């Protein structure tokens, strides 16, 4: 049992590839435990995880712009035509 111990530990290079599965809650329970055990002892991977979370939040900041008045007009015209053409 003791022999398995160290070989089961994840290394940083594996951590950065598992991070999305971790955030998506898609890791099997045992793998999740190993992931969290590594995280608890590694400030760099903790920082990396924080950066991934920040990236996701910042990407979420790219918001939909509103329609311009000209486009509203265009879609209104289109809608009337489509309705009129309807069988």
């Amino acid at each position, binding site marked *: 049992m003791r022999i398995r111990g160290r070989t089961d530990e994840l*290394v*940083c*290079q*594996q951590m*950065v*590839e598992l*991070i*999305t*599965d971790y955030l*998506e809650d*898609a890791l099997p329970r045992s793998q999740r435990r190993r992931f969290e055990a590594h995280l608890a002892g*590694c400030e*760099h*991977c903790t*920082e*990396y995880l*924080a*950066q*991934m979370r*920040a*990236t*996701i*939040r*910042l*990407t*979420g*900041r*790219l*918001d*939909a*712009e*509103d*329609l311009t008045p000209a*486009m*509203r007009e265009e*879609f*209104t015209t*289109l*809608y*009337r035509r*489509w*309705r009129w053409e*309807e069988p």
Partner: protein
Amino acid sequence: MPMGLIEALASGRRRARGGSAAADEEGELVARLRAGDEQAFVALVARHHSSMLGLARAFVSSPAVAEEVVQDTWLGVVRGIDGFAGRSSFRTWLFHILVNRARSTGAREHRSVAIGDAAPAVDRSRFDASGAWMAPPQHWVEDSEDRLSAEALADRIHVALEELPPRQREVVTLRDVDGLSSREVCEVLDISEGNQRVLLHRGRSRLREALEEFVTA
């Protein structure tokens, strides 16, 4: 932790999404559209237009063709609204129509849709032989706001998103910009949960890398 940029952005996002109140409003707009209300139509277009354009751009090469795909999708919505059974959300249904049209248009343009690069999330040179960090990530999450505006960060992400391989861009756009769930993304793009995660992982990793380069430059 101070109320920094990230938290401010996150709360702004929650306001923009609006949760179930926004879903109710959308349901009402869809009901009015069924009844032939043109203002409801324009309101729905306004809600989804830029998401749809962004998504269409991942499939077709020019902005003009993307506009056509979006317009064609709305024609399909007007003609097909009676066939919308409400089993999925209106947005999932709408995006699914868009993706089908964008795919057939993209195929006509003979554009190859590759699964994307298989590069590692972080360059191998940053790890030592044992796989431990040799060039670890620098700390920038909270203090970047002191030096960089939210607008500058958003611009950089926007550029990085445009540079992603199409399939990664589709998934990241739908998940992280438009806020769809993983299940909805799979439904819209007809891909498996596993593929969705792989594409999301590669795309998000590239965006993080771009931000890191920008913030620590």
